[in-house]
């Protein structure tokens, strides 16, 4: 697995108030099932150390995160080299429970959008309320970004992590960089 590469080779862009860069390899696992089942919470906790997220929540813990994607779908973020092991653990812990756990690390690309204008960069592209009152840390927002679906959340450190499909990684990087290549709108707080 050592020669795996990300979609954009850590591409970067710096705008007046925002930096955009591709994140390093990250393990990502789609897990589908009855999230209310007790087996599920246990298996997810065992695999990630994270509690089960509430709707639209992303829970961070240690080197893993668990995001709520839909009523029967989670996104697990784990260290890249542990992905296969986590999928195997989940499959073992959930044996006999109807579920689907699949590695999607390579199906996605992750961008970090950082700087005082980060919220306004996404507000140029997404029909979502990006004000701190509407989107605080801990919420995973799935929405449209320009012409593609995307998901993002405010990191504990204040930046925004943005996830999109791999094939449109370059498009996403380009539209986000284009939006970042402008002075702040000064409508949303930094």
């Amino acid at each position: 697995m050592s020669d795996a590469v990300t979609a954009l080779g850590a591409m970067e862009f710096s705008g007046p108030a925002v930096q955009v860069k591709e994140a390093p390899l990250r393990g990502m696992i789609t897990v589908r099932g009855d999230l209310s089942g007790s087996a599920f919470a246990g298996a997810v906790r065992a695999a990630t150390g994270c509690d089960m997220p509430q709707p639209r929540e992303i829970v961070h813990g240690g080197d893993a995160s668990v995001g709520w994607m839909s009523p029967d779908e989670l996104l697990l973020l784990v260290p890249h080299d542990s992905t296969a092991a986590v999928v195997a653990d989940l499959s073992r812990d959930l044996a006999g429970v109807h579920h689907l756990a699949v590695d999607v690390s390579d199906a996605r690309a992750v961008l970090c959008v950082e700087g005082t204008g980060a919220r306004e960069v996404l507000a140029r592209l997404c029909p979502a309320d990006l004000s701190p009152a509407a989107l605080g840390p801990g919420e995973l927002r799935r929405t449209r970004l320009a012409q593609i679906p995307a998901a993002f959340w405010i990191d504990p450190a204040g930046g925004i992590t943005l996830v999109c499909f791999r094939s449109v990684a370059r498009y996403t990087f380009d539209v986000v960089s284009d939006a970042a290549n402008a002075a702040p709108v000064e409508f949303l707080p930094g």
Partner: protein
Amino acid sequence: MLILTCPYCGIQCDETELAPGGEAHLTRHGPGSTDEDFETYLFDRANPMGVHFERWRHANGCGKWFLAARCTVTLEVFGTYKAQTTEPPAEIVAAIKARRPEWEAGR
């Protein structure tokens, strides 16, 4: 540019987050059905001026299909609800009745 609230994730969706799916509560007719029933299933669609039930998918979001009760004239939304039902739930019917007392369920 409608706003419809996804009953699964609670987002007040901008219309551009959604994909439309036509009329709700159709009954599927498969092999063994009469020509009339099958034709109704495939082609016969309500086109009311007023209360209408329709399918939407939160395509740029949680991915779930949901149903909406909406007035096609004023665009008032009486409610949205989960797709796992064959008819509008009682609270949706009540919400419609509250706003459109003259409306009768059924086509």
